[in-house]
């Protein structure tokens, strides 16, 4: 059971966009931004409030990689695996991150809720390939070693 405050926050967000079907994505985005995930209960609540079926809301939420029903970590790392980054060896970067953090394609967030590793299809920074972002800050021309170093640094910071 979520605390009442979650519903109150959601009511505020819904009010901002209006109780209509087209508010679905922006409302879910704001909830995701606020809590770093989209709690399932709120998806159900939003669907009912704006008048779309729960199944439709679930369909939209699962279509976009950005929405997550699991809480995401403090640092959300998006490794670009678009064509340019892929040919410039983005996969070794991803694998280095997975191995450093004990994550996988299935397990995306560390147990200490510090890191979430995702892939994205293109960050639009092909000149900097292979690239990744951490909480929207761009890290250009990555190598597996550089990626691991960044992680260790962040980990040190947060300790």
């Amino acid at each position, binding site marked *: 059971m979520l605390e009442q405050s979650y519903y109150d926050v959601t009511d505020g967000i819904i009010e901002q966009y209006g109780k209509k079907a087209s508010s679905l994505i922006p409302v879910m985005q704001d909830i995701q931004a606020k809590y770093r995930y989209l709690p*399932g209960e709120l*998806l*159900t609540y939003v669907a*009912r409030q704006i*008048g779309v*079926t*729960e*199944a*439709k*809301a*679930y*369909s939209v939420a*699962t*279509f976009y990689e950005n929405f997550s*029903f699991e809480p995401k970590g403090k640092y959300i790392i998006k490794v670009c695996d678009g064509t340019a980054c892929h040919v410039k060896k983005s996969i070794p970067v991803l694998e280095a991150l997975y191995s450093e953090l004990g994550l996988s394609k299935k397990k995306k967030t560390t147990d200490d809720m510090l890191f979430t590793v995702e892939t994205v299809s293109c960050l639009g920074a092909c000149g900097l390939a292979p690239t990744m972002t951490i909480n929207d800050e761009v890290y250009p021309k990555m190598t597996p070693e550089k990626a691991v170093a960044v992680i260790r640094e962040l980990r040190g910071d947060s300790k």
Partner: protein
Amino acid sequence: MIHAVIDGIPVEVEKGTTILQAAESVGIKIPTLCYIKGLMPDGSCRMCMVEIENRGWSKLDTACSAHVSEGDVIQTKSEKVIASRRGVLDLLLSNHKTDCFSCAGNGSCKLQDYCYEYGVDKTSYEGEMTEFPVDDSNPFFTYDPNLCILCHRCVNTCNKIVGRGAIDTAERGFNSIISTPFGVPLRESSCESCGNCVAACPTGALSSKRQKEYRPWQVEKKVLTTCPHCATGCQYYLIVKDGKIVDTQAADGPSNKGLLCVKGRSGSFDFVHSPERLTHPLIKNKETGEFEQASWEEALDLVASKFLEIKKKYGPDALAGFACSRSPNEDIYMMQKLVRCAFETNNVDNCARVCHSASVAGLAMTLGSGAMTNPIADITQKPDVIMLVGSNPEEAHPVVGMQIRQAVQRGCKIIVVDPRDIDLAKHADIHLKLRPGTNVAFANGMMHVIIEEGLQDMKFIEERTEGYEKIKEIVKEYTPEKVGEICHIDPEDLRKAARMYAKADKAPIIYCLGVTEHSTGTEGVMSMSNMAMLVGKLGREGCGVNPLRGQNNVQGACDMGALPGDFPGYQKVANPEVIAKFEKAWGKKLNPNPGTHATDIWPAAIRGEVKGLYIFGEDPIVTDPDTAHIIKALESLEFVVMNELFMTETAQYADVILPGVSYAEKEGTFTNTERRVQRVRKAVTIPGEARPDTEIFIDIMNRMGYPQPYLTPAQIMDEIASVTPSFGGISHARLDAGETLQWPCPSKDHPGTPIMHVGRFARGLGWFYPAEYVPSAELPDEEYPIILMTGRILYHYTTRAMTGKTPGLMEIEGKSFIEMNYKDADAIGVKNGDKVKISSRRGQIVSTARVGRKVSQGESWMPFHFPDGNANWLTNPALDKYARIPEYKVCAVKIEKA
């Protein structure tokens, strides 16, 4: 008009016509997988690709979504088109197993058919295939995502046609899957198990578990008939293999438009082949109290001689008969003829007495005819606003409910007037969550606002009605504030509802037992017609006063004269001319005294005035209020005979049980809620020694001294037509020729009457009945502080005698429960799922609490289907003064933790 050429055939079509529609109009078939007629094209399967040439260019496009343009030259079978379709099938097979032998869809799979037609026997894109778990949770069907081609027909059917929206496409790309929210099993989702998605699936992905019993090519015959559950009158085929019904298939009937609900699709034939069917006449051994098998001769002789003896000893009015509202018109007609001609009494009634007798009586008084004024399609497709009063169609009339949900999706506004948060209330523009038993106050409040704000239709009132001044005077007192207090609603909501209803161009009132089953039920009904007349919403499209009748043929049971005061077609017993007419037609001196209502027969039996009772297919111990009182009455009777399919609770009190036959074993007609007479057809042979009920009645009539020749059901309908003006033009021959007739249909060339009271009320002038609010007969007090309402749920029909024989329905809902408000539950320490003891002044039962906000504080609700805690041990037999209908919807109870 637009001109084009398709496969060399010139076509002329209206602007906006799709290529698929244009091709169909000249008999050219284009293959489709995702297309659903009547919906916006999905355009996802790409199977309907055609080649279009125009002004020198040529392209491939989907026929389902591309509109015909002037000068188009369209090829539906060109090389390019064939190559494209082969490509589509090749890609589909890249992620679809082809082990068709073990697939339930084998033989009814469009993918299989097209692959065969286009010569695609395996994919050229070999590789990984999805491996999702199969969802086998639903008792009636299975979803195997690995056989799914993602055409979205199921999703579009569930969302846009059924209006439930239980499923949608989840995930993306290769991981795409048709899913419930959060992937919960279907059984735990909001799915209503109607199976319309299964019918829509072009492959074996969604398959009915019934399909395990047969392959399409093994089907012996498909018999078009009418569903035996509610009065929507859905048309479907019974699928017969080796002399047994193995499945159903929806037909495109006028009231169901190809849809079915869970009861119709899955719960309408198991009972036919149930091993519990009675197959021999049974006579109770007076000494042992046990039933013993008897021959028909013995049983019929005993029945006739005992009834004759009672008639001789106590007079004809000591006999009574109840007709069966689930049986065809022809059976009911013969039953009432038996009572009138052989018993020589008018003590004949049917179970409308306990459901919609208030509608029959009330609307006859105010409008002149006690039936739904407008057709189902009309009141769901045409209106701007629907006012739904005391009706939960999504459960009680599910296919009507689906059509109302479609209306809501189209933008039709909806006002729900109901004490419970029924599902439609969630979609309502206004929900008036009334205190049970306050309908008259609500209606008077609506009229107060309408008159106060000058929204009434004075022209209509002046030209077509009488009694306006009186009602105007009465409703003056019913200010929204006063009504708000009586009904526990917000006065402002009442004002809004009144404006919304009055200002709508087209707005029907659709109501059900929440209006009728009160000690003031008839006045509640007349309040509905008062509201409609006040704003001129009668006698025209998309309007009217529309009682959704309960049983499949309860409309017919009333039409056929199974009423103590009415011969067939509501010709009054009290009218000597009518008596003379029927005496001539039936060649028999008739009893001129109107008979006793079914609900008054019980006290009369206890008083010793009624001695012999013939019950045709009713189970009053389960269905009538105050069970203890019904048992006492049955025990007081000297002789009870029943025509039954099963050993019901009431049947155990019979002296003789005669095994009749089910709807699937006889010919006849049912009349649905919209007065539409539809055929019932024999699909399978009769089990054991059971006999058609009409023949049983005829044998008893002859034995009791009234000579009645054997007639086929078609001949009986001809006799009905000859004595019933409103059925004058109805015959099996016309119905079999494909006509669908709504009475009044007075002559052979009459097309039937979809909308009643056009231009003139059946009564002449419509009458505003001066109704004052009177509280329910039993109100909560200190000892019994909670109001109990009763009703039906989606998965069962009343006594469960039929639906209870379908294991899947029992698996979904098989036990009694009581809905409680969370505050009331908290106060006595009861949690969701706890056992509770419920008692009233008449009895007590134990049930399981469902705690929530569905009912208001101080109120509770129970279904009466389940023997483990039947609400009718508690309900109040207080009767309405006009229709003698009992107050099922309000009694006072005490709830304790068990």
